[in-house]
């Protein structure tokens, strides 16, 4: 049938959806919850052959991995933000401070169009939403996703509706509002917003809305694989010894691991044992707690942390993040708000990378896991900075300002600099 042929092409090499919990199959559609057990649906593919040369000759964006995503082959020619292919910095200064003697790398996803890794997942979800006939792009967000959705919708000429906790950082709200979509503050935390979006599915008001992280979630989540793909390609088609990834819903960590296993299966990198570590804020640490307790179940918490982008108290992919960490002999740590601010400053002063609070969480947790002997200081390590510090300026407001305010004279400058040395 021509419709089926068209649909197959529209989702690239994706073939169907499969439940991660019970294995039941579903057709490619706007479903996110298994009809049998309510488990999360995931995209399944028939990749065929994918080569390094094919990827290297592709677009200078995440669309170079289009053959491994549920998107049409001509996706790079469509109207979207073309995110991805962010820089992988060798971080020798930070390595020295942290006592890492193996090489340290920072995958800096603040280099995306709206300055967080969320541009990746939105780009993939947006493509699926268009294929499925949605005219409005929507989401539940802790801020970065709202920004990414509003911008992506604007570029594609779509409408957008983003729902966020009303206590979100002002900078994130203002940046999102610039794109002139609906930015709706919800009285409650992210988990309340998420619940509301779940309830909106199937309602008349939202019938044309593709919620990137609800009814488009299977496609959305696949975008995170590209962080893993890029790290491997940028390291010269190989995997590092260990990686530290911030954990909110747990999807990024889970999908970086999935991406690396796919690269191994496709023969794009050599098979090896790598270790996956997670980073959370102490004020929202349900996955870290489950890891420490050896628990299978992630008990929800009520978040209270400055790392609002990680403040998901009931993480959808928490159990799968735990699985990946345990399978690879990793660990998950959590750090206090004070340590998060120190982490932000450390990354900035050592490497010239101003990360948002989640970046601070990752750096501080890396330091903690090294101190606990859980991370190997002699191994090659990649840490992931998922967002831009300009979005969470309030976190570093204390102690940030002029070094001095002086009269415009050489003498005054000399006095300040020599006085400080």
């Amino acid at each position, binding site marked *: 049938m021509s419709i089926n042929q068209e649909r197959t092409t529209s989702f690239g090499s994706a073939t169907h959806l499969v439940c991660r*919990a019970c294995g039941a199959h579903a057709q490619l559609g706007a479903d*996110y*919850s*298994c*009809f049998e*057990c*309510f*488990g*999360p*649906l995931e995209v399944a593919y028939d990749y065929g052959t994918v080569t390094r040369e094919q990827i290297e000759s592709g677009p200078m964006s995440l669309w170079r991995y289009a053959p491994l995503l549920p998107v049409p082959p001509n996706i790079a020619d469509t109207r979207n933000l073309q995110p991805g292919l962010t820089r992988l910095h060798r971080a020798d200064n930070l390595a020295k401070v942290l006592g890492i003697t193996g090489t340290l790398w920072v995958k800096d996803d603040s280099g995306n169009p709206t300055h967080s890794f969320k541009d990746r997942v939105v780009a993939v979800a947006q493509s699926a939403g268009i294929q499925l006939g949605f005219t409005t792009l929507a989401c*539940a967000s802790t801020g970065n996703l709202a920004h990414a959705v509003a911008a992506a919708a604007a570029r594609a000429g779509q409408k957008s509706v983003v729902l966020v906790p009303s206590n979100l950082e002002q900078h994130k709200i203002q940046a999102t509002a610039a794109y002139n979509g609906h930015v709706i503050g919800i009285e*409650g935390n*992210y*988990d*309340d917003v*998420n*619940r509301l*979006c*779940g*309830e909106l*599915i*199937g*309602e008349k008001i939202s019938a044309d809305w593709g*919620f990137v*992280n*609800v009814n488009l*979630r299977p496609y959305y989540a696949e975008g995170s694989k590209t962080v893993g793909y890029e790290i491997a390609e940028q390291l010269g088609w190989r995997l590092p010894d260990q990686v530290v990834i911030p954990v*909110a*819903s*747990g*999807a990024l960590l889970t999908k970086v691991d999935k991406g690396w296993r796919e690269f191994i299966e496709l023969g794009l990198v050599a098979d090896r044992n790598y270790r996956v570590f997670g980073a959370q804020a102490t004020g929202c640490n349900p996955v870290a707690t489950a890891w420490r307790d050896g628990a299978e*179940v992630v*008990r*929800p918490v*009520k978040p209270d942390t400055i790392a609002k982008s990680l403040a*998901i108290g*009931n*993480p*959808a*992919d928490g159990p799968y993040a735990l699985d990946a960490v345990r399978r690879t002999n990793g660990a998950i740590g959590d750090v206090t708000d004070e340590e998060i601010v120190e982490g932000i400053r450390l990354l900035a002063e050592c490497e010239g990378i101003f990360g948002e609070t989640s970046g601070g969480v990752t750096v501080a947790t890396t330091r903690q896991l090294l101190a606990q002997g859980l991370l190997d200081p002699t191994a090659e390590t990649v840490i992931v900075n998922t967002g831009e510090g300009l979005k969470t300026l309030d976190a570093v407001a204390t102690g940030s300002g002029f070094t001095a305010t002086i009269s415009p004279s050489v003498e005054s400058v000399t006095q300040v600099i020599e006085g400080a040395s």
Partner: protein
Amino acid sequence: MSVSIRIPTILRTYTGGESVVEVEPTVETLQGSFDALDAAAPGILARLLDDAGALRRFINIYINDDDVRFLDGLSTPTPAGVQISIVPAVAGG
């Protein structure tokens, strides 16, 4: 006196497409409300609870604004007038 239960799209095949079902439980707990729901929408209980009678892992249940995991689970009281919401759990992030 009744409680209202919000039904997710995925379970509306049991409720004739209705998104909200009013029930009058004889026992005023979440379990009692679910039993009353199952009487009105036969078969739905087996979708909400596993074989051991526990809430399925990938379902979130809210009573008014609170996740029942922070309350007493199936034993949580559901006095007349409360709103129960059933939401598949895998969204977000």
